[in-house]
Structures are given as C-alpha cells and as structure tokens.
C-alpha cells in the first residue's frame, strides 16, 4: 500500500509465514512505518475512535443477540430479561444503546472535520464517497436496531420510515408491502430487521477496510492542507499516531461511560418502555437524535414525494462535494469566507436537529424551511461560488514549516471548539427531550434517595412500597416483570430467602395442565412472577370502564417527560433524570374533588391535576390511613406516594445500585488511565516537538 518498509520478521516461524502470506510486512507498512503528517490535531483521532466504536457495537451486539428473541410477542420481554436476569445484561444493553449514539456523534465530528479541512478534495474523492456509503449503512443499521426492542417508538418509527417508500410513484405500495412482509409492520418485519441488523455492521466493516485502503493510497490530509513533501513532514504511525489515538479514545470513553453508567435513558425515548401497540400512536413520534436534522428537512416540504426526495438528497449531495467545491485551497484555515459559512452551516445543522424534535407547527415550520434552504444552498450555491470568487490566504510551504510556525498556539482552538461542540451536541441530543415539554402542569420535583451518582434505594421505602402495592395497587395493576426471588436480590428491599419463600407461598399461581389435562392452582414459589389481577387485557378493560390499568413494572421509566430548552442542558450535567418518578408521585396526589371552573370531566372519570387531559379513569387509589406500616412511618398520602414510587422505581430498574457502583469504579480507572495516556503521549511526542 504505502509506507517505506522492507520489513522482515526475525523469528523463523514468522519468516515462514511471511514468505507465503506477507501479512507482517503489510501490517508493518500500513500501521507502523506508515508516514503520518506530524501536524495532525485531535480532530484526526476520530477515525480511530470510530473504529473502536464499530468494534464495541459489534462485540456488544453479538453478545446481546445470544439472549434476544426476534419475535413480536417475545422481543420486548427478552430485552427486559437481558436487563434483569443476564449477568451484566444491564451493562451490555446500556453499552450498545449509548454506543449507537456515541458512534453517530463521532461520525458527525469526523464528517465536519472532513468538510472544514477539505479532506474530500483531489485525490481523496473516492475516500470521501466511501465515507458517505459507510454513513448511509450506519443510518440503516441504527434504524433497524432501534426497532428490535419492539417498544412503542420502535414500532411507530418503523411504520413511519417504511411508509416513506410509498411516496415512490407506481411501485411505492408494492415496495412497502415487500419491506413489511405483510399488510403492516409486524412479526415478519421484525425478523428481517434483526437479520439485516446483524449483517450490516459486517458490511460496514468491509467498506471501512476499503476506506482505510483509499486513505493509505493518498495519505492523510492535514490541518494545513499541504501534502507532505519531505521526510521532515511526517512521523511513523507507530508510536506517534497510535499513542495519540489511544489517548483520544480514552477521553471519548469517559464521555461514553457518562451515558452508560449515569444517564442511560437521557438519549432515548420514554415511550420505548411501553410495549408496541398497533392500536395506539404516541402523541409525538420522534426519531433518535442523530436522525433529527433529516427529519426536519423531510417535514419542511409540504409535498410527500418531494419531502422524501429532499431528505435523501440532503445526504446524497455529499457525494458530489468534491466537484461542487473546486477551490484549490484545501483547508478552511486559509479560506476566510468559506470558514465563516462553514460555522454557519454547523449551527444550521444543529438547529435543524432541534426543529426535528418540535411539533410541526407555527414558527417551527417556517424556521425549518429557511434552514433547509440554507442547507442545500451551502452545497449547491455557496461552495461553487466561493471556489470562483474567494481569495484564499497563502498556505504554508510545507508541513514542517506549519509545525514550526504554530508551536504553542495549538491547544486553545481545540479546547474552545470542543466546548462549543459538546454544548451543541448536548443541545441537539437534548432537543429530543423537548418534543413533549410541559403541555400539562409540570409535576413538582421531589428529593429521591436514589437520585444522583451515589443514589441508593431506601430499603424501608421499598418494603413499605411493596406493602402498598400488595394491599392496594395489585387489585388492578400487574407487576409481571418482577419475580418474588427479586425481593431477595442485592440492591432491593433486602428480604431473606426464607421471607421470600413465605411471601411467594401466600400467592395462588395457576399451573398445569396436570395429567388429567386440567389447569390447577398451587402455592407460589420464589421463581414465579407477581401474578396479574386479570387473565387478559379484555378482562382488564371490562372491569375498569374500558381503560386497561397498565402494568407497573416499567411505569417510572415509561412516564418520563421532556424538559424544554435550556433545562435539558443543565440536566445533562446535574444528572437529573427523575421526571418519571416525579410524575407518578404527582398523579397519586393530584386528584381533586372539584375540577376547576369551566372544566368538565366525563361521567366515570376523575379530575387529576397532572394527568394529560386531566380526566383519568382510575379513582383516587390512596388516602390517609389506608395502609398501616409496621415501622411506624406516617400513614399519610404523601408518604404512600413517596414509598410506592420508590418501590416502582426499583421494579423498573433493580440493578441501579450496581450500575452506579460500577460506574464510579470505571470513572476512577478511566480518569487515571487518561492521565497516564496523556503523559505517555507527551513523552513519546517530545522527540518530535
């Protein structure tokens, strides 16, 4: 490929292999001796970061696939089984879900770096186009992966995106039916998405090989945009770039760990904790944050086919960039006009992302249209225009000259742009949260014992909450993902095995058929799950005026609501993520005898201050004195609300304490390791600086 290597291994066995398959020489010339420009900045570590993330996603994905069931009736349950029962299952799931977001974050940084420094220009056009292909494959993979948990957003996101293809004239509906494998999104769709989701990452890996090959033919671009001329311009890839990349990966891993261990649901949608229901569409269908800008472009065009064409075009236009921008100067560092328009473009992309999460009404629509025009104008009008009229500044003579001229001033631009990007990224990611911001009264914030990085469940509250569930809630609400044995697990209510066995034995569990073919009842065992009060959903509806009481196993995660801008930025740093528990506690205490003036509640419903629409079918379930506690805690409604909500938070996330505990250990390790890597990098590079 490249690299000045007449490498011959010294060991006779390696020599034997080398003669028959020269893999060691190949590795040496590509990744050890390979000449790398010595003036690369940290934006160039994102290639290695992306390779790392692809490996992480493949490894965690393969391992998750050992426990996942791709059937519409079993998928949601199998994901909960992974999180609750598989050893470290919660960790693997968080790594894979957060990993997808981190993968896209890194790819956007990588792409913007390419735009800014002109890495798409001659002779790197094919390298750039291979990158666009990788990006498209990533989008397909991410979309299909999100469908697999088969939550509400999985199902309805699949419905919306597959329906896009119905815009194609003549063949549209045939194609959609072909994609679905049926008359709507269903089990055939899920099965094939699982197969393709497993396949595509390996296709991505193959295209990445081509991408790195194309890169090695041309050599890396560099911040000055001047090709290497002499040996003074480059350093061998190992150890210089290797060590620097490892340091970059470690810093990235710290951000990754923040999501995995402390904010696992920040980037997701609460509705995906509700099993898919083909009969109920969520109030706001929002894709994951990394698709938002394209979603905004799609919705800003009032015509169905034109909107779809615009959305796909917004990605395909990237392919033509090397020909749209024919300026001789590569790097925007020396292109004062192009540089400004570039930063405006970055802001436009972030704002488009924000708008993609807003309801398509009023000023949001107008803004999205304006920004869509800028998006296309940037590529189709500005780039060609600037190529002709812009007068660039003089570029350095060589990379070596560039390094000498810039010594000392390199650090600051990187730090400030990192901060800008983190804030921008947080804005974009958090804007998903804005979709359902306070249309109703916001629930009051409570102090929860489990909040924050050192949060723990209050054992007493868990036990009292269990009592409330058993005596009151269980009459109508199931808790079917919680088994009696979980009550003895660490990080939970802390019952002993004997107490759990006794508690289980109080329940009558339906079992069978016996040898006569009949179903029978037997006392519960620790392995059994809390039984549902109704045999099926129809019975639940019939007994409750047409509204089925939801299963409470995941309710505190399913009822999280979004806080608008700018609160979601602060929440990212303060780790506030207790919106769900605040909502549940508020509902329990939010009943009012008399609705406010002018508000009418239909017959059979009750007024609740915090319930969306204010008319809830559930009568006030709790009141003072209803449940007495053995530990003497006050028998008041606020106490009940606090305790049962704490219990339900544990039911939704039994491994929270383990997650935070391991997170602290991982953070300590990563920070120490990042420090070691930093000094190692400095030491290695001291020879060159």
């Amino acid at each position: 490929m490249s690299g000045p290597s007449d490498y011959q291994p010294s060991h006779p066995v390696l020599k034997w292999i080398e003669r028959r398959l020269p893999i060691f020489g190949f590795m040496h010339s590509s990744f050890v001796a390979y000449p790398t420009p010595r003036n690369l900045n940290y934006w160039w570590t994102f290639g290695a970061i992306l390779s790392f993330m692809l490996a992480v996603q493949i490894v965690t994905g393969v391992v998750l696939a050992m426990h996942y069931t791709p059937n519409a009736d079993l998928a949601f349950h199998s994901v909960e089984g992974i999180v609750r029962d598989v050893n470290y299952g919660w960790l693997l799931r968080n790594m894979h879900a957060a990993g997808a977001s981190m993968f896209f974050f890194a790819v956007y940084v990588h792409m913007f770096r390419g735009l800014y420094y002109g890495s798409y220009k001659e002779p790197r056009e094919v390298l750039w186009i291979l990158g666009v292909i990788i990006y498209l494959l990533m989008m397909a993979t991410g979309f299909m992966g999100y469908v697999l948990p088969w939550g509400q957003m999985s199902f309805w996101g699949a419905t919306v995106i597959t329906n896009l293809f119905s815009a194609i004239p003549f063949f549209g509906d045939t194609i959609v039916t072909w994609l679905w494998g049926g008359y709507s999104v269903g089990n055939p769709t899920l099965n094939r998405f699982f197969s393709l989701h497993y396949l595509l990452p390996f296709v991505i890996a193959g295209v990445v090989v081509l991408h790195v090959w194309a890169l090695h033919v041309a050599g890396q671009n560099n911040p000055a945009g001047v090709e290497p001329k002499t040996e003074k311009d480059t350093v061998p890839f190992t150890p210089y770039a290797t060590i620097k990349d490892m340091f970059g990966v470690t810093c990235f891993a710290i951000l990754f760990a923040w999501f995995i261990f402390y904010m696992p649901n920040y980037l997701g949608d609460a509705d995906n904790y509700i099993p898919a229901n083909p009969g109920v569409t969520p109030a706001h269908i929002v894709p994951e944050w990394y698709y938002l800008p394209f979603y905004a472009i799609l919705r800003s065009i009032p015509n169905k086919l034109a909107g779809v064409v615009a959305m796909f075009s917004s990605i395909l236009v990237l392919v033509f960039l090397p020909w749209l921008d024919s300026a001789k100067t590569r790097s925007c560092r020396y292109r004062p006009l192009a540089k400004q328009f570039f930063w405006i473009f970055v802001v436009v992309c972030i704002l488009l992302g924000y708008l993609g999460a807003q309801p398509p009404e009023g000023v949001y629509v107008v803004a999205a249209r304006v920004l869509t025009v800028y998006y296309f104008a940037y590529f189709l009008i500005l780039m060609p225009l600037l190529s002709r009229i812009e007068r660039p500044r003089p570029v350095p003579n060589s990379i070596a000259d560039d390094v000498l001229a810039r010594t000392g001033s390199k650090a600051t631009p990187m730090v400030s742009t990192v901060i800008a990007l983190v804030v921008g990224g947080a804005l974009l990611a958090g804007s998903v949260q804005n979709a359902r911001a306070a249309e109703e009264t916001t629930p009051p914030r409570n102090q929860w014992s489990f909040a924050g990085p050192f949060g723990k469940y209050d054992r007493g509250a868990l036990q009292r909450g269990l009592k409330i569930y058993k005596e009151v809630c269980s009459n109508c609400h199931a808790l079917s993902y919680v088994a009696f044995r979980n009550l003895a697990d660490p990080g939970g209510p802390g019952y002993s095995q004997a107490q759990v066995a006794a508690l289980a034995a109080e329940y009558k569990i339906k079992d069978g058929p016996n040898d006569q073919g009949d179903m029978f009842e037997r006392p519960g065992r620790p392995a059994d799950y809390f039984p549902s009060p109704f045999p099926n959903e129809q019975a639940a509806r019939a007994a409750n005026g047409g509204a089925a009481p939801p299963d409470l196993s995941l309710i505190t995660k399913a009822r999280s609501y979004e806080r608008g801008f700018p609160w979601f930025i602060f929440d990212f740093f303060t780790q506030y993520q207790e919106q769900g528990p605040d909502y549940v506690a508020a509902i329990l205490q939010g009943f009012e005898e008399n609705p406010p003036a002018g508000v009418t509640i239909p017959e059979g419903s009750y007024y609740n201050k915090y319930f969306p629409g204010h008319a809830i079918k559930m009568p006030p379930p709790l009141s003072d004195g209803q449940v007495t506690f053995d530990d003497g805690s006050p028998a008041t409604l606020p106490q009940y609300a606090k305790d049962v909500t704490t219990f339900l938070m544990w039911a939704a996330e039994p491994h929270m304490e383990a997650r935070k505990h391991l997170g602290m250990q991982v953070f300590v390790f990563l920070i120490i390791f990042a420090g070691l890597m930093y000094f190692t990098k400095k030491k290695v590079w001291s020879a060159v600086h």
Partner: protein
Amino acid sequence: MTTASSADNPTRRDFLFVATGAAAAVGTVLTAWPFIHQMNPDASTIAAGAPIEVDLTPIAEGQDIKVFWRGKPIYISHRTQKQIEEARSVPVATLPDPQSDESRVKSGHEQWLVVIGICTHLGCIPIAHEGNYDGFFCPCHGSQYDSSGRIRQGPAPANLVVPPYQFVSDSKIQIG
C-alpha cells in the same frame, strides 16, 4: 523513535510506559469479564433450576416415573424386594464401577431408586426395565445397568449418577 537527551533518568520514562501498559492490560481483562460472564446461566435459568418436590404415592411397586429437573430426566423407581436383593447380592469388587447398593439409596427407603437417566457413555437415555440385569438398557451402544443403576456391561464407564435428593416425608422427596 529517538530520545532527546538521555543524560537524565531513563528509568522515569520506562516507569511511565510500564505503568500505562500495565493499566491498559488490567483494564482490558476487567472489561473482558462481563462479556465472558454473560454466557453463564442467567438468574431466571438458575431460578428455574431450583429444587423440585415429587410425590411418591402414585408410584406402585415395580413401577417407575421420569421427572425433569434442570433439563435432565430423572428416573424414580419403586423397586420390588427381588430387585433390591439382586442388587445387594453382587460382590461390589467385581463391578466395573464399584459401588454398594446401600450407598446409592437412602437408608429406611431402600425401595426407592433415584437416578439421572443419562447414560454415562455418550448421553443417551437408557430404557427402564430392560436388559439382563432387570435394570436399564441403553439402545445407543448397548450399555446395561442393574437394578441399582450400576453399569454391568457395555462401554459406559460409570454408574448412573444419583442426584442430590432427600425425603421430606415418607411419600415425598425433594430433588436438588
């Protein structure tokens, strides 16, 4: 890879490189553990493998039943007096896998034989009440077990395994 001036401490640089390398190695091993451990049985599988109780009253003398525990078939035989005597009359030293009948049953409950029905050769399920020894016969490769579940002839190397069990009452056992 040139070093600038090596007049000062080469050992400090080495210490840094060794420390970083060691931290990387430790980190890699610790990271690998969850990926390995996730393949071990998960909590629901372990819970499903909890001990089971079997009621012996429906099993008549000379009869046997097969129950499943942890995915394995378990024969529970109500032995006749003849079968018990046959099992006890064999000189233990002549057996391919020497074991006395007394050690394979619970004292006071000698008529009950509880064995895992998996041939110790290559894992097929032997058929009860077959073979020359009024015990079990494995159709796959011809191993023959006696009325105490011990191997008498054939390629199997060991006696049928006795699972952990105890009598919670005269008519009920708990397996596991």
